């Protein structure tokens, strides 16, 4: 569907739920609010305080507060939040905030669907995210390249292999489109933060919030690092091959790992004797952690579900080809081999490949 066929279907009320759309941003311009104002006027201080509150929630991984009903206020708070994120400049915090934020957007999209406002979903998909999406009653067609970059899972009904794919288009339901939009919005918000530039000096008042959020975030990271130490010292960190050690560190620092990396890490931990609960503890640090989905996946890998096979981690060759390993360990073809050798006190020579 071409973008021009879509009317602007968003009302001011929608701007407060979807403040990231370009039209909402232009309403902010009408407000003629500068960074100076944010730091120095009562309205500005209100905006700043609300942005601060949201970011501190994100640091703790908690649900974000509901959007402001006054859409002008909401849009201002939203963009101020992004500016502060850009000021903090930590990709993991940005990812964490965006994940939580997109989750809330998904709930609004479902409500819109219940009210029969499909055009709002289409508008976000086509006009805002630039997706190639075509409604075909009673479903929607989406070009596969947008589907595969936004699908939330890689098994069962979400797996591309199990979809009807015709001439490049995947047939999805409207609810599924909403779920795909959640991922799309998350990536879009991340890109807004990356593009956000603060021209000139950051006013003192705004800078204080940047500092406060940075401090809270790094304190939180310290907590996480100590968990990492506990976990890996169970067997001694040296017993872990460099690839798994790296994945574990990334995971514990809250990075959103791709599916293959999560599989590699979970299957490794389960195979060296971590319980399902302990493995879940490690994944609890994901920005998009959802207990139900993660538990299902970990139990599946542990062989408690589905095919009832306990999965082995990938071989070293595959780890490398999936981009999860950049080392060569002498005489080791499988990450578990490294672990068992190290456990027997044998040293393994490790070479970094690239």
């Amino acid at each position: 569907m071409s973008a021009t066929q879509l009317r602007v279907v968003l009302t001011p009320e929608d701007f407060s739920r979807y403040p990231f759309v370009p039209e909402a941003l232009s309403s902010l311009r009408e407000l003629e609010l500068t960074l100076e104002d944010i730091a120095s006027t009562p309205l500005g201080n209100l905006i700043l305080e609300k942005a601060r509150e949201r970011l501190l929630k994100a640091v703790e991984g908690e649900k974000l507060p509901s959007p402001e009903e006054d859409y002008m206020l909401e849009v201002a708070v939203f963009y101020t939040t992004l500016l502060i994120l850009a000021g903090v400049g930590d990709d993991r915090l940005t990812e964490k905030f965006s994940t939580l934020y997109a989750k809330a957007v998904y709930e609004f999209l479902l409500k819109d669907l219940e009210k029969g406002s499909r055009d709002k979903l289409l508008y976000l998909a086509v006009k805002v995210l630039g997706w190639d999406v075509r409604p075909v009653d009673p479903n929607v067609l989406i070009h596969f390249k947008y589907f595969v970059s936004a699908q939330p899972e890689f098994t069962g009904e979400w797996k591309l292999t199990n979809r009807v794919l015709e001439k490049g288009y995947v047939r999805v339901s409207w609810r599924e489109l909403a779920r795909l939009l959640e991922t799309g919005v998350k990536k879009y918000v991340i890109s807004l933060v990356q593009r956000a530039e603060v021209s000139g000096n950051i006013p003192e008042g705004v800078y204080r919030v940047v500092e406060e959020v940075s401090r809270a975030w790094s304190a939180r990271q310290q907590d996480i690092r100590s968990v990492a130490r506990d976990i890996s010292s169970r067997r001694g960190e040296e017993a872990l091959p460099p690839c798994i050690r790296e994945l574990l560190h990334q995971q514990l620092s809250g990075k959103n790992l791709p599916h293959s990396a999560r599989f590699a890490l979970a299957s490794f931990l389960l195979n060296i004797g971590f319980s399902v609960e302990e493995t879940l503890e490690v994944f609890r640090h994901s920005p998009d952690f959802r207990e139900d989905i993660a538990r299902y996946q970990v139990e599946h890998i542990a062989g408690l579900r589905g095919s009832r096979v306990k999965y082995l981690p990938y071989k070293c060759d595959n780890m490398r080809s999936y981009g999860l390993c950049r080392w060569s360990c002498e005489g080791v073809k499988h990450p578990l081999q490294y672990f068992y050798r190290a456990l027997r006190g044998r040293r393994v020579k490790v070479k970094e490949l690239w």
Partner: protein
Amino acid sequence: MSSLALNLFKSYYRRTYVPPPSHLEKREYGFQLFGVQGMLRHISFGNGNELNEFLRSRVPQHAYYSTALYESPSAPEMSGKGWLGAELVFDIDIDHVDTPCKELHDTWKCKNCGAEGRGQPRACPVCGSENLERKSWVCDICINSARDEALKLLDLLENDFGVSRNEVAITFSGHRGFHIHVQREDFMSLDQDARREISDYVRGLGLEPELMLRRSKGGLYAFRYDAETPGWPGRIARYAALLLSERIAGSGLPELPKAEWEDLIKTAVNELSAKIDEKVTIDVHRLIRLPGTLHGKTGLKVLELTASELEALTAEDILKKAIVFGDEEVRVRMRKLPSRVLLYTIESDSDVVNVPLHLALYLHLNGGAEVLR
């Protein structure tokens, strides 16, 4: 002979201008030189002449280029290269397909118990060890099977993914398969998870038969889709209609016990999926053979083909196009000669045979044959 191989390769690069790939200057190149261990990597070229000058002066045994484009392709660390995107590529290698000719040309030797034999067994039939030393060869029969897989892939790309035949560049690898490069700029940014989904799709991996069945009366199951449905469901429905043709009364597929459907779906997927090496598709930093150069194990040319050429040409035609050296007779000695190789059947009880030059080169490069005259 090693110097003969080097000289033949040298003569080839002296008389050939290897066409520069698209975005030549944004790609990383890798080469393996004669008699040198390891690969020269992180090489880049500013234009086609520099590339050809390198080939003429260094005469590599193997030449590769990246499917990825980089800001600084010669940076020594992956993190410093500045990844800009990568072509969507599929590798069809006959190692992944059972062919009858493997008994005629492939050999193995068990490193554990010393047993040896022909064919390509998964493990040693004597002691069960998987530690086998293998020697594999290519013949027209191999290329025919690889061609069938490539055609299945083209069908999947066209009908399911909407990639038309003039949007793919096909390469005969110079050994046992084909590389299919999708030439769509809008796919360059796909990440690894996305590429895995595409790879799994063409392999039919992760397909869950249960999602295609509907419970019906009497404990039987109906197939949810008909032959007109696009994608895997329709493909499977058409295949099932063929297999079940005697049991079809009126329109539509019969209702069957669940297990029977599951078997049938599994067979259909096995038959209709394209046997690709998924590692090549998923890896976004991959080096792959550079078209127009020579394959260092066979001396055959890495040959570019269009989709219609692939459809129209026979395996024999493809091999003839890939053979770039003459057929003057050369006497060679080699143990365990393959009985079918390239276009030739070798029937000889002796270790010494007279063969055309291009075959002598192949026997030497891949089998260590000694050139006698």
